[in-house]
């Protein structure tokens, strides 16, 4: 057994211990702001470690703990995204928490690291047990992170509670599905399940098990109708947490879908792809139409990210290598794009409030910020020359290809719906742009006078994200090569 295999996880756990000890040792009156830098540096170190390690190029992939931990290229790639998101989230949190005088800063950064650890274990899960424990760990951490503004904002507590109750329900569904799967197959190992699925007969119990597992995972992915927590939670949570939840939580859920449905239960693709496609169709329609009538910027972005989860799932539904690569590329673009958008909205909300109208006149007040937000939302809508265009293009192409090659006409129809709804989404993304550049600023409104202050942490976040949005859009081939190598 190779105990050194989960080195990145150990690194993040070590970081958690550092945070814990710092919080214990440093006197209470000293601000915990420095912890944000500690976390960012720690995550940067782990990120460097991940980027330096090569994805295994030969089967069998290295595993540890009797196959309960898998260190394949998929895990490596998704971990890179998650740790990058965690780094950006710690940078974004620095001044956000300080400005609000949040008392639980030590705990906040601790939870952030522990959640990152959970997500890393999640994408490396080689076993339904690892998967479930990691999923619970990440959920519990997020419940508290969402409610960390408790006492300052009632909606934060409300969102935490709502998330907790619905999350517990979805965990129960998933666990019930897992227990049925175990009963049917006699194994909880994903590799064992894959071997079993290759030759097992279908039964009503199997359909129920798959439906329950898919529902549990769809909750984490926030696919309609398991999305009802998302708008409230995204709106009320501290903005850095929202950004982290929307990107890291979602990419990890994507990795889970790939691992559980595509890899382990690929033999039953004929059963679960119908379930998944119904969820996705509902997601495209509901989320994109729902976003149109939102007045709160974060709520609008919540609906947008529900819709984005639907696009990501196309790669899973296709079930092909191409689809997987496309999904990973899109996830990468999505991480930086969404973090950029939330970061700008966070800065603007400090002065202009959470409403969409707070963005008015941003194009004149802070042209840089406005430009980045515009680039981010256009990328999300899939407009060239930004990364989102290629992401969507690859995803749709993978779906169409798989639909034609494998003769799955439902998949073709689904991609068609996705294209149409993607055009609808342009509508609400452009509302944001219109607010910034066309709507006249209200001279009476508070905080709309001068340029928006951008602290150092936010500058770093925005710089990294803007660079990535442009890089993925203008010169994606090195990134595609990295993805291909990871998923060989």
């Amino acid at each position: 057994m190779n105990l050194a295999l989960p080195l990145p996880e150990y690194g993040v756990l070590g970081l958690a211990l550092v945070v814990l000890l710092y919080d214990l040792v440093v006197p209470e009156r000293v601000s915990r702001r420095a912890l944000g830098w500690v976390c960012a540096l720690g995550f940067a170190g782990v990120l460097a470690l991940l980027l330096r390690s090569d994805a295994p190029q030969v089967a069998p992939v290295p595993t540890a703990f009797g196959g309960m931990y898998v260190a394949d290229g998929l895990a490596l790639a998704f971990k890179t995204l998650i740790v990058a998101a965690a780094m950006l989230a710690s940078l974004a949190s620095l001044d956000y928490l300080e400005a609000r005088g949040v008392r639980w800063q030590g705990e906040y950064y601790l939870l952030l690291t522990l959640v990152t650890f959970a997500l890393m274990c999640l994408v490396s899960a080689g076993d339904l047990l690892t998967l479930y424990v990691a999923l619970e760990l990440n959920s519990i951490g997020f419940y508290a992170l969402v409610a960390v503004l408790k006492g300052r904002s009632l909606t934060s507590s409300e969102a935490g509670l709502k998330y907790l109750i619905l999350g517990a329900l979805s965990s129960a569904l998933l666990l019930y599905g897992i227990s049925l799967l175990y009963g049917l197959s006699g194994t909880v190992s994903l590799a064992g399940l894959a071997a079993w699925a290759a030759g097992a007969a279908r039964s009503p119990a199997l359909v129920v098990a798959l439906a329950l597992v898919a529902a549990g995972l769809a909750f984490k992915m926030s696919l309609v109708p398991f999305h009802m927590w998302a708008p409230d939670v995204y709106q009320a949570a501290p903005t850095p947490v929202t950004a982290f939840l929307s990107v890291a939580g979602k990419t990890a859920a994507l990795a889970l879908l790939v691992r559980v449905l595509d890899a382990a239960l690929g033999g039953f693709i004929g059963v679960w792809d119908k379930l998944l496609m119904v969820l996705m169709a509902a997601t495209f329609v509901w989320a994109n139409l729902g976003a149109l009538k939102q007045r709160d910027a974060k709520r609008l972005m919540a609906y947008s990210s529900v819709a984005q989860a639907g696009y990501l799932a196309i790669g899973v539904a296709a079930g092909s290598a191409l689809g997987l690569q496309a999904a990973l590329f899109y996830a990468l673009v999505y991480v930086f794009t969404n973090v950029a958008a939330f970061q700008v909205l966070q800065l603007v909300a400090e002065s202009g409030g959470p409403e969409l109208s707070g963005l008015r006149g941003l194009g004149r007040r802070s042209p840089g910020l406005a430009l980045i937000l515009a680039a981010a939302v256009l990328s999300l809508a899939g407009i060239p020359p930004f990364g989102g265009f290629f992401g969507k293009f690859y995803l749709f192409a993978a779906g169409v290809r798989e639909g034609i090659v494998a003769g799955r006409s439902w998949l073709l129809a689904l991609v068609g719906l996705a294209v149409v709804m993607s055009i609808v989404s342009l509508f609400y993304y452009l509302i944001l742009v219109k607010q910034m550049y066309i709507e006249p600023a209200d001279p009476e409104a508070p905080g709309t006078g001068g340029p928006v202050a951008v602290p150092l942490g936010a500058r770093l976040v925005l710089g990294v994200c803007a660079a990535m949005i442009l890089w993925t859009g203008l010169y994606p081939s090195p990134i595609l090569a990295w993805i291909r190598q990871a998923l060989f």
Partner: protein
Amino acid sequence: MGLREVLLAVFAFGALAFALAVVSTRNTVYAALEFVAHLLCLAALYCLLDAPLLGVLQVMVYAGAIMVLFLFAVMMLDIQETGRESAFQGPGQVAGALLLAALLFALLVFGADRFPAAALAPAAAPGAPGVGADNVVRVARALFERGALVFEAVGVLLLTAVVAVMVMAKRRLEN
């Protein structure tokens, strides 16, 4: 039918009866006590099914610690009867609950029918000597060899939960 089967039936029906009592009792303290009884029945079932370690841990953790804290909270808050009305409001809810229960039961029966024999076979011959001690060794091997990472992750999970509860529940002490 040996003693074992008789006891299995007794404790299985006991567990069911107490579980029903838990959800139908209005008095919260009674419900908690009935839940303890239910857990003890489950522990007895585990012991009869050659998983004595699980049974003992069930008593230690659930009946001895968790339910005590639960009773503590219930008694301290002095939660009395939770309203006069029945737990189920209207025939629709009763019918829905029964339907769902029937569905789950059918799923269990038909699903278990398809479970491979390996998943249902006992881990060791029933009543074999040393099953108890062997049980501990096997559980320990499973926990600390294959499951070491998950075990540690559960430890981290508990830490997270403790910190999360502190963040959510602790009031600010103003100097």
